[in-house]
């Protein structure tokens, strides 16, 4: 999750539900294959931001997500949908992928 859309150089957001963008990457054998940015519907939502964000992840077929903090509703939804979540902030998307060996 990120507040900016600068590809792999985007800095990971300190929050999940209301982050501006989702930077979605496909990783195959440690290599980044595709990258795209989607607007996070949670960022615009009046309420239920975390849930809406998770719904979007599900729609996009995302398996794992990285952000600085996950609220209680978001966390429950992620677990129910079997999406892994990692708490990290202040690093770029590229660095996060490296740190997590994804």
């Amino acid at each position, binding site marked *: 999750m990120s*507040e900016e859309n600068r590809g792999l150089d985007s800095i990971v957001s*300190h*929050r999940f*539900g*209301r982050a501006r963008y989702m930077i979605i990457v496909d990783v195959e054998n440690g290599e980044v294959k595709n990258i795209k940015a989607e607007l996070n519907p949670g960022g*615009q*939502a*009046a*309420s239920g*931001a975390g849930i809406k964000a998770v719904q979007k992840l599900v729609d996009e077929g995302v398996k794992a997500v990285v952000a*600085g*903090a996950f*609220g*209680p*509703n978001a*966390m*429950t939804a992620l*677990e*129910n949908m079997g999406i892994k979540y990692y*708490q990290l*902030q*202040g690093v770029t998307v590229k660095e996060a992928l490296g740190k997590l060996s994804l």
Partner: protein
Amino acid sequence: MTLEIAVASGKGGVGKSTLASTIAIILSRHSKPIIAVDADAEAPNLHLIFGIKKWEVEEPYGEAMVAEIVQEKCTRCGRCAEVCPHGAIDFIDGRYVVNTVLCEGCVTCTLVCPVKGAIIRHKTIAGYIRQTMTTYGFPLISGRLPPGRPNSGKIVSEEKERARAMATQDSIIVVDSAAGIGCQVVSSLAGANMAILIVEPTPASFSDLRRVYTLTRHFMQPAALVINKYDINEDYVETIEAFARENNIDLLGKIPYDDNVPLSMAKMAPLIELYPDSPASKALIEIAEKVAWITEHWREWFMKYRPRKPMPYKPQIIKPPELGKA
């Protein structure tokens, strides 16, 4: 790194704003770049303590769009109601009507409507965010929500986002949360590096403290504690201190009950400015100095007080009984 400190309590009226404002002022006297955020958009009062009479910037935020069906043009085909992702279009008395509370202005209805101009959109204002420089050399970001409107978590997120946009590497963002543990408070805590909790020695306050503490555990945040008005019930203070010890919460200090506190609030000025020698002032200043120390020795303090075990707060999901699968 930019440090974000959230001040929370659970219970209202125990001293969050007094503590948050003192911390902001004292840290500022240490020449630290501060940004104060009033994260209570329903009943903001940090600006009252800072004696702010007008705002440099006051703007509506989160302008939402809401759809409206123009009945004279509507052919009652019902396509809008079928596609609305929020279930916000009702069929009432033979007419399709948009439920403005549920409508999120996504335009899906407008896209499928066969009649041009049958669905129009209005702007509604979700709330206001305002900002001004205080006379203490740092900015205050505050919010205001119209009564009964949703978005409380969102406006807090928005305020903090603005603070971060203004922050430099050395900035310290001091967030004064609302009371309770609702969306506003969750939003205030999310992303904070540390939480400073404040409690008074009463069962009600202690009970609320334990609830807000579970949120800090959810976010894996190190927590510090301040006991306010400690002399109203000194026996109970023991119980609270034991709780802090058991949970590795850094007890920063205790503040005595002091009539000058409400008096300074009535005069719309910080306690430590109006009555610097009053007992509460002295205690508050000592506590704020400790917070200054923490910001200067962040790594060390963080390593000592960070929670080791994740304790995510999982809301209980009540599932509807399984219907027979089609």
